[in-house]
């Protein structure tokens, strides 16, 4: 099921459309946004000279800090009278950023959400419960307008009050749930406490986003709530939800490439990574009127999944966000992401591993030790097997990280439990 014909666009046609839209966007920001006008001037960029999509690599990047420096309206490309909606990022990692939408932006956004809902299986027959917060956060309103555009019956319940969520779910016969993946598990927990069997509900689909999650969490949500759980991605600086979403094959997120131009770059060299390698997602908007961005550095890490998807969509897929560039470490000159270690250990252990990463510098050489808590699946009564397992972990880590590491097994529950990602790293290097 498709929402519109662009989803199956021929690759050449898409590239032409992207170039045309990119040229227009760059022309508009050069005229209307002082930040870009000055930057282009500094970098001596002739906006008329963008002849190929690859030429985007000559353009400067936009960072979160640039948006903050232009708080609140400095990055808007239209006068406020043309803006019909304003959203803002939470500002949890610093000063908030403000984004605006024209009526046409809202229409585009709604269509892209309708596209993602359709890809996930939702249709006009569905009753969709939106348990994202309604407010300055783009999640609630973004999904709301898109679901209305699709023609589903929308329950704008907003976030919180889990018992009431469940009550409404039962009474209103909700068929699709929209929330964060962790909240879906919370709902499942409360249902269990209340003795409610999820199989008795009408729930069929769950569309989850707004935070990082794992394949294991997907399995758990699908199992416990008996739904098809799909991932979707977006960020307010670029639009909000609707940038990318999974189809029912659940094999990565199709990027809405007719509206967003993606690049996946090495976060240090800022050169493109090889297709399929992990890098930072950089997005340029192609159709945004009020708040266009050029080469916005999302700091989200992902990789391209170059194989075509059986669903027939030609938009390329990216893997679920695997981490943040903020967590990246440079060890012996190699970029290492703690999340890579996590997924390798998950693969070997079959459970969410607890580990610490310790980096030291001895005689001017970086030494990395991965401390891993032993679980039953990697513990043996025979020393030979135990040591083989350690070697095996060491080899896998070295092969996939591209840098040699020491592996040390420690007892369960002996490592400190940190909150938040990236905090498992203890960098003792004094540089």
């Amino acid at each position, binding site marked *: 099921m498709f929402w519109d014909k662009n989803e199956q666009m021929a690759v050449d046609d898409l590239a032409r459309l992207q170039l045309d839209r990119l040229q227009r966007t760059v022309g508009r920001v050069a005229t209307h946004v002082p930040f870009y006008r000055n930057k282009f001037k500094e970098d001596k960029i002739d906006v008329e000279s963008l002849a190929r999509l690859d030429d985007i690599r000559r353009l400067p990047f936009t960072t979160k800090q640039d948006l903050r420096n232009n708080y609140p309206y400095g990055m808007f490309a239209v006068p406020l009278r043309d803006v019909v909606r304003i959203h803002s990022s939470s500002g949890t990692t610093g000063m908030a950023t403000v984004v605006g939408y024209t009526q046409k932006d809202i229409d585009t956004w709604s269509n892209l959400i309708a596209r993602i809902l359709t890809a996930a299986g939702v249709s006009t027959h569905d009753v969709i419960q939106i348990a994202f917060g309604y407010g300055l956060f783009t999640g609630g309103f973004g999904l709301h307008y898109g679901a209305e555009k699709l023609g589903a019956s929308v329950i704008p319940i907003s976030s919180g009050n889990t018992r009431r969520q469940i009550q409404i779910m039962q009474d209103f016969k909700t068929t699709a749930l929209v929330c964060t993946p962790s909240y879906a598990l919370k709902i499942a927990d409360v249902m269990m406490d209340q003795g409610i069997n999820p199989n008795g509900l009408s729930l069929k689909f769950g569309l989850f986003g707004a935070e990082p999650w794992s394949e294991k969490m997907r399995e758990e949500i699908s199992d416990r709530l008996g739904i098809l759980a799909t991932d979707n991605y977006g960020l307010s600086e670029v639009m909000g939800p609707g940038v990318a979403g999974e189809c029912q094959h659940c094999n990565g997120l199709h990027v809405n490439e007719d509206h967003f131009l993606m690049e996946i770059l090495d976060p240090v060299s800022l050169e493109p990574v090889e297709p399929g390698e992990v890098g930072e997602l950089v997005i340029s908007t192609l159709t945004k009127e009020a708040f266009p961005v050029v080469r916005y550095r999302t700091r989200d890490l992902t990789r391209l999944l170059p194989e075509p998807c059986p669903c027939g969509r030609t938009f390329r897929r990216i893997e679920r966000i695997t981490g943040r560039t903020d967590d990246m470490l440079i060890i012996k000159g190699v970029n290492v992401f703690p999340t890579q270690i996590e997924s390798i250990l998950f693969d070997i252990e079959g459970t969410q591993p607890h580990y610490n990463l310790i980096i030291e510098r001895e005689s001017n050489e970086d030494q990395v030790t991965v401390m891993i808590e*032993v679980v*039953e699946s990697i*513990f043996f009564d025979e*020393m030979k097997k135990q040591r083989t397992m350690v070697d095996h972990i060491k080899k896998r880590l070295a092969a996939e990280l591209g840098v040699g590491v020491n592996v040390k*097994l*420690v*007892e*369960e529950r002996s490592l400190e439990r940190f909150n938040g990602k990236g905090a498992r790293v203890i960098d003792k290097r004094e540089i």
Partner: protein
Amino acid sequence: MRVEQIAVFLENRSGRLAEITSIIAENNINIRALSVADTADFGILRLIVDKVEEAEKALKEKGFTVGKTTVIAVEVPDRTGGLAEVLDCVQKIGLNVEYMYAFVNKTGENAVLIFRFDDMTMAIDSLQANGFTILESSQVYNL
């Protein structure tokens, strides 16, 4: 014929072994045999106890990583050459010993050898065929 043994992962830190033995004692479990294999970083403690399930549960509750495997217990007279005879036979048959340890039972007449072989079935059959006494698990737990 097979005896259940529990294995516990142990970091090489002082007091860890004492902690395990106290947990076992608090739960009124008796240790029948014990061995530790260690490297610079960690060790593997192997235990034969009278109440396997209870011991496993108690240790897991305290956060230890516990595995369960089966071993066989061969009884030999406690005299010079007792062990040599068994090992000689093992070698002739071509059995691979993953690890072994030994203890002497209360009466002091017999020694008990605990073996883990790569092929346990073949080990039991051939040791018995060569006239060695393999203890039943209940005999070992109640030694």
